[in-house]
């Protein structure tokens, strides 16, 4: 009798052990108001409409965790500064690098490649062409990083003072049309803006030589202890697992795109 009960006993034991681990440490701590910074970036968030992917994910996180959030809009560069200092707990749709890894933890929920949106009249067929022509300027969002070769491309142009920084993409589109910059780096969620006739007419898209880069929930290591990070990561993973993430993306992208971005 005991022999038959052994597997069952074993399973119960495991469950008993697992549950505390799952319940105790993995629960987001809502004892205080958590701060989350949104930045204006195409479909991710628009202050004009007050809507975007990031907004939806933030709302979902609020809902799922039950914590009180203070959500504010701020420039991306400031977001990274505050995440590093611990003044900001969360942000969304961030990518990592060695520097950021030191102060930020991430919970990935989508990935995409980066592209160079370049004016057709710049006479550029490749990234190297753009680099070679000193008259060509690149517009970037201050504080943004990309994949490895894109980073190298941006750094090289910065060294030659060929970058124009902006707090968000909208001014960059304007100056791109004005030919004050000849290119900008875009991601798929920038496409709706690009698809506008005027921009699409005068530009072409070049692909960077990098694989797709994961984007995710940014958690300040200073503000959130590792167990909290795990808790929130679990939350995000849940959202991915149960298709919530995809659904959110589908609001803004085609199903195909949404799937491609969220499944990685």
């Amino acid at each position, binding site marked *: 009798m005991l022999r038959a009960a052994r597997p069952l006993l074993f399973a119960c034991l495991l469950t008993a052990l697992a549950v505390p681990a799952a319940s105790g440490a993995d629960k987001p701590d809502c004892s205080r108001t958590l701060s989350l910074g949104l930045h*204006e970036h195409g479909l991710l968030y628009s*202050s*004009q*409409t*007050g809507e975007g992917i990031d907004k939806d994910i933030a709302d979902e996180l609020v809902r799922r965790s039950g914590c009180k959030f203070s959500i504010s*809009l*701020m*420039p991306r*560069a*400031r977001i990274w500064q505050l995440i590093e200092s611990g003044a900001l707990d969360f942000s969304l749709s961030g990518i990592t690098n060695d520097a950021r890894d030191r102060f930020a933890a991430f919970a990935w929920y989508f990935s995409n490649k980066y592209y160079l949106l370049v004016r057709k009249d710049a006479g550029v067929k490749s990234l190297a062409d753009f680099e070679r022509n000193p008259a060509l300027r690149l517009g970037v969002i*201050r504080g943004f990083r990309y994949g490895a070769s894109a980073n190298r491309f941006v750094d090289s142009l910065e*060294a030659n*003072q060929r970058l*124009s*920084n*902006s*707090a*968000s993409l*909208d*001014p*960059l589109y*304007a*100056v791109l049309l*004005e030919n*004050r910059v000849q290119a900008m780096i875009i991601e798929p969620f920038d496409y709706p803006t690009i698809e506008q006739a005027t921009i699409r007419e005068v530009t072409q898209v070049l692909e960077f030589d990098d694989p797709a880069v994961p984007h995710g929930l940014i958690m300040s290591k200073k503000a959130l202890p590792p167990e909290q990070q795990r808790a929130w990561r679990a939350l995000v993973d849940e959202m991915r697992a149960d298709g919530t993430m995809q659904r959110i993306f589908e609001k803004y992208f085609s199903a195909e795109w949404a799937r491609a971005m969220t499944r990685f």
Partner: protein
Amino acid sequence: MKRPLSSLLPLWVAAGSLAITLGLWQHERLGDTAHLRTSFDFAMRQTTTSIEQRMASYEQMLRGVQGLFAASHNKVDRASFNAYVDALLAGSDFTGLQTISYGPLLSADRLDAHIAAQRGADAPGFAVRPPGPREAYAPATYIAPATERSLAVLGYDPFSDPVRRAAMLQARDSGSAALTARTALVADTQGGSQPGFLMFLPLYASGQPVDTIAQRREHLIGWVWAGFRMTDVMSSLYGESTPGLALRVHDGTALLDDTLMYRSVPDEPAPGAGMPILGAQEYIIVAGHTWTLEAHTLPEFAKRHRRDAATVILVAGSGLSLLLALLTYQLATARSRAYGVARTMTAELRHSEERYRRIVDTANEGIWLTDSAGAISFVNPKLLQLLGHTSAEMLGKPLTEFVAADDRAATLADLASRETFSRRELRLLCKGGAELWGSLSMAPILDASGEFVGGLGMVTDITERHQAESKRALLETQLRESQKMEAIGTLAGGIAHDFNNILAVILGNVSLTQQELDAAHHAAQHLGQIEMAGIRARSLVQKILAFSRMQPHALVNQPIRPLIEESIGLLRSTLPASVELDVQLADAPLAVSADATQVQQILLNLCTNAWHALHGSAGRITIGLDAAELDPASIELLGVELAPGRYAHLWVRDTGSGMDAATRARVFEPFFTTKRIGQGTGLGLSVVHGIVSAHHGVITVDSTPGHGSTFHLYFPLLAQPEVPRPEPVRERLAPPGQGEHVLYVDDDQPILLMVEAMLKRLGYRVTTVEHPREALERVRDDPLSFDLVVTDFNMPELNGLELAIELAALRPGLPVAISSGFVSDELRSAALDRGVRALLQKEYTLEQLPQLVHHLLRGAQAPEAAVVSG
């Protein structure tokens, strides 16, 4: 091939180090530029961040106001509003913010009620501006802080202004703050205009959902807004200007004057040459509104931030590169330059060496070098020639090996002193043993530290000079000898003269006495002795005069052999039997210019001497005669002064005791004798010497003690003998006088007495006078009184010749004869010149005076005034 290294290497080094310098300079410049850019970028970020922060805080503040309304369920009265804003603004730095306003959204139909309500409250003058019908209104109902200026804006409807309206609508739809484009604040339009903007925040009905745009539009009830002056906002951030940065803020992305909201530097100075200008444009989002920040560096930015290391590196690097290249050049060419210098020096040295070698090789002096040990290290060709050695025979040998033994010690001492000495005379040994007289000068050679390393010697061949000196010494000796002899001769002559006078008296008186007495008288024998002695004495005086060469002689060219044979005959009878006389006469007729009597005298004296050398023992005397050919070498060997040529060689050899060198040297000295006193006068050989000299010949002697002596006589040979002249016949007996008056002048009283007696006996009248002056008086007094004057030559006051001259003046034609102890050639010729009739040899006064007087009185010229002795 050699060129490349020394000339290219420095170039390579220069190029390399300049390249490095340029590289470092470039690197530094790039670093400098990067640093500048980094600084600039940082400044930009600072600027944008501070603007964003400030605007965010403004927004936050406005949200506070929004919150006031939300908390009050949108029921906020003016007083509460003012109080809130005052509290909000108190203690905070919101420079730039002019006013905070509240304006409800009013449809046209609610406007009037709103105006009335405001007028009824605490704003009696409330009116909506601009007037006119519109779809909706949002007049500024509350304005705080309530200043005169701000209250003047009360009632202004921002919704009427398109710029403001756009922002208001954006705020409504987004639910968050919205910024207007650049505009002028209403408050400002009334006085002084600055670019400004307004920030609007929507107010929604409380409790209503505002999640979507539609909901927000539906539930909008109004706005709160704040007005800002841009310059004041920016000033409050930075002060009047950012150091080194010229900042411009444009509304939107267009960089136009219309959009310029702020300019930090009103008048920008022209950029300095070479100063990098960094510029950037950054686009910031403020409450959903884009502002373009345009910044570029002013010269002072570069000055402030740049490091000047690049220039220093360039200058220092270039300098060091050149230095390095120069150093490399020096090192690379050191060798070739050293070679060059060495070559030049070597050439100069070689040239100098050749010059000196030429001097040394062609010098007429022998030159040698000795090393520190005194061994010969170098000899020049002249020295080898002088000594006859080869250089191999001389090199390495001590110098003294070539110095004659006698001089070696002195030379060694001189060399050891290591001092300079010059003209040390010494004999050097030639090859084969011959000696060479040399004058040696030596100087020590010292090296740079003063150490003795050897000597330099110069040898001058002084053999000739030495020989000349020897010859001169010999000649001097001979001269001294002859001078001595001459002195003695003069002395002897003087003595002889007196002697002759005395003898003349003695012999004269003896003769007179003999004439007075019978031959049988017992005194005659004594007189005879006296006569013999006197004659011997006279002979002796003659010898003396002969040796002093004052005796007149007659050189006749004749064969010499008969003269010798005559003498030999005489000698055989004279020499004792123990002495063997050997004769070796050549057959050839050898003619010489000789005086027969004197030749005989020579032989006589020589053989007498030879005989005396035998010291009474038996021995042999050899007399030889042959012809001799004398060349300069043989003459030199003889050590005499003679012209080379043919000579009659007469020699006399004895087997006697011989003479040592000292004796040999003095053998011809007058009065020098090795015989005991009384055994010889020491005049014999002197006389011989004098005679030979008078014959223009020479006499030498070879002698070895114990082996006898040989006297060699050389007479110049003549070609042909002359026929000898017959000898003049001497007249012995003089005829008597006829009473002629003879004046005899002589300072010697005995002579006067003798002559007076002699002439008186002969029949003449005689007047004797002692003093010549008296004789002159006598003649002057009575010139014709005298027929003949005979005067002595040697007299005080006036000699015989002078007297003759005076007498000739007094009475020309008066015959005068002079009598003298020695009749010299000068006297003879002078007498002839003055007309003196005859000269008489004083010692033959007795024999010859009577005949002479006779001849002179008879008017006949006396035979040969030179009255030769018998």
